[in-house]
């Protein structure tokens, strides 16, 4: 049985204390502090990372539950010298202010665009069976798991829309 997690493409050992959340594993063991701790209880979304292609709250899962899994954090999406298109769009449209919720927003949005492409429905979808669109209302609902206390939501939606339309 493997006891490692693949983090941004690199296999890393799981810590011995099973209490360590995936979030604390990333921040403390791996030094990947781009993933933020805002509430530690799944109530803010700042800790959102992508595990095996799905976005999750890394605070509400244990590192020990993820052996063999593949985790992508904000650091795995882009760097200051090579940012992802969404990262660039967030800067261009000022989709943040203090920046603390931002990595979670971007991880969340990255996975969300894949979910729309895969036809996942949301509470805002009028037709559960139709093709899913990255409409403003869909984006707002699908991004509602990421709180932004600075109130950058309008700009976040604009930034995501730009990338969604570019993909189309």
């Amino acid at each position: 049985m493997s006891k490692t997690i693949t983090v941004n493409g690199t296999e890393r050992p799981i810590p011995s204390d099973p209490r360590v959340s995936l979030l604390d594993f990333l921040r403390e063991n791996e030094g990947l502090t781009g993933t933020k701790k805002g509430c530690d209880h799944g109530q803010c979304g700042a800790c959102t990372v992508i595990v095996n292609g799905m976005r999750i709250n890394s605070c509400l899962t244990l590192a020990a539950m993820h052996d063999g899994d593949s985790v992508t954090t904000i650091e795995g999406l882009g760097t200051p010298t090579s940012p992802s298109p969404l990262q660039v769009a967030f800067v261009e449209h000022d989709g943040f202010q203090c920046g603390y919720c931002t990595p979670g927003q971007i991880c969340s949005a990255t996975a969300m665009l894949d979910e729309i492409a895969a036809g996942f429905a949301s509470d805002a979808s009028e037709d559960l069976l139709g093709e899913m669109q990255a409409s403003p209302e869909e984006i707002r609902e699908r991004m509602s798991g990421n709180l932004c206390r600075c109130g950058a939501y309008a700009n976040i939606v604009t930034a995501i829309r730009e990338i969604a339309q570019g993909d189309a």
Partner: protein
Amino acid sequence: MSAHLKQDEPVTSNRLDGMKQGIVGQPLSRVDGLAKVTGTAPYAAEYKIDNVAEGVLVTAPITRGEVTSIDKDSVLSMPGVLAVLDDERLTTRAAQGTANEAPKQDPATVCYWGQPIAVVVAETFEQARDAAKHLKVEYRVHEGAPLDPHQVAPEEQEDETVNQGDLDAAMARAAHTVDVEIATEGHASAAMEPHAAIAEWRDDKLTVYASLQMPNYNIAELADSLGMEESNIRLVSRYVGGGFGSKLGISEETVAAAIAARELGQPVRVVMSRQQVFQCIMRRSETTQKLRLASDEEGKLDGFAHHALVSNLPGEEFAEPVLQSSHFLYGGENRQLKLEVARIHRMTAGSVRAPGEAVGMPALEVAMDMLAEKSGVDPVELRLRNIPDRNPEEDLPFSSHKLADCLRQGAEKFGWDSGPRKPRQQREGEWWIGTGMASAARVHNVGEAKAHVTLKSDGTAVVQSDMTDIGTGTYTIVAQIAGEMLGIPIEKVLVELGDTKHPRGPGSGGSWGAASIGSAVYVACEALREKLAHRAGTSETELDLRDGSVVGGNSLVELLDGEDISEVGHYEPGEIADSHTASGFGAFFAKVRVNRFTGETRVDHMLGAFGFGRVLNEKTARSQCLGGITWSIGVALTEALLFDPVDGHLVNCDLAEYHVPVNRDVQDVDVMMMEERDPVASPIQAKGIGELGMCGGAAAIANAIYNACGARLFQYPMTPDRVLAALPD
């Protein structure tokens, strides 16, 4: 070298408009943007310090009393536990903004449920968190602590009291009157980054990485708490994950980390849990407000009264300044204003974004809507008729006044219908649709500030201050001002903030940051320009700089000839602050829908038009306005601190049950910025914008709810239960 400007006179030169680089005001992207979107910007808990031990605060589950014993042995044998500290210097409340001295200490005396009384330190976070829960503490409870602000005799805040003319007579003779009581509940800042500190000692020198809005005051607060000299302390706060008042003063984790690190001889980090942030940092006081308005037939005010009851802990000077803009927003010869504070045992009440107007304006502007209805005057027109020429209490001139423009242009852009207004005129399926509006006002503040600007021989510049950027865009506007003055693009300006090794800035709070630090940078750059002009053989006023060169002349590199030049700019507010009333003004327009079955309200569209002096960066300023409007939605519809009636503890102490707005709550939002130059507000003609966007917006929503469905609510937030209770049949 240093240059000093104490502003006693209006500054009408508008120098920034004459500069040639052309970047001030431009919607440039944040210079710290890439660091934030890639997760590489370090926040307080994220500095890579070797051998850090983890501290967790222990809090009291009693309302009032004393700690009689702490059984440290109950946890010292647990794995990894290093220490339990109950040092009497531990602080038990957050310091108020600009306190400049230690907040309350003495952790053995408990004044509110959830107060920190000790800190447990262990090798790992999990060990410390578990041990903190296990620590056996005994208390002597002092029963009967007052918890209800309405059950105690309040103290009048006499410097807020106004008795001008004869209000009762005005009410008696008025053609139209409004006499209404409106309540708001407590609010939390709920910044996304929990309060955190890492403390590290080198001999007698202490460095603390913390999440702070005002290091310039916080250093004194920490020094006083620890009994140290400021010169032995360095605070680092380069990135702050939101403040909104909650990080104005030092809070409990900072002092705890410092004491623990000293005791253990190793660095210690203390991060508050989200629940602790709610339970032992600032709350905005709940308010009960009584408004009386007396007008003539045409709605012109003759009488104006605003009374407010707020609360705080015994011993706290802060009282939510509810009446702040009521003193001057509207005319009325006969005036009564009174602010009272009830002493109760909930956690400290202090500054939460836009203290005062954030709750005072939503009440006042509902009363104005009622007056509009009674007098039959359109709500926009009613406000226009009541804009005073001068401050109606102090007879001072306004520094600048954009309210009328905001009302008119905002109404036009929104498509405001100035025809007769009646509730329940529009329905779409289950939803009633309505519109509402309100004025915005927020007093303008400035603070003393210093900034060190170096123009390097390679033609780049460095600006340094202990000023912070709490998401407001300070890094960027500082780079823009320096770049504008020195004729270089912002890519060539390095801005270093949030470190007390640099000169003291103003700190971020009360929306004063940009105007204050911007003015200090401006003053420094003016002095640097003198030097450059001298080298270029011209006068400072004639010196045109652009893209690293004198226009049509030498490059900066040539002028500097291998030498760095630098200046510390020192800006101080002067007498002008006493000779004028300075405020940001604006207008909000909202379109809402109210579900006729469930009472749920959704804000379909909101527009804010604001005048706040010079716009330093159109993009970041707009973001500040958007943020304020988002908070307005929270105040109007969702945010309320709920306190247990038995022991006063905050029951909804997390982000699941304290409802800050989510993305879907914010639909179509529009911002208009009314560019102006305010020569009184600051030497760069700018006023604050961080708070104006939430000063009245909730009332536009409340008034739209009334227009939509006929439910006139007198309590915020307007949750479905309250809307249903107020619905006429």
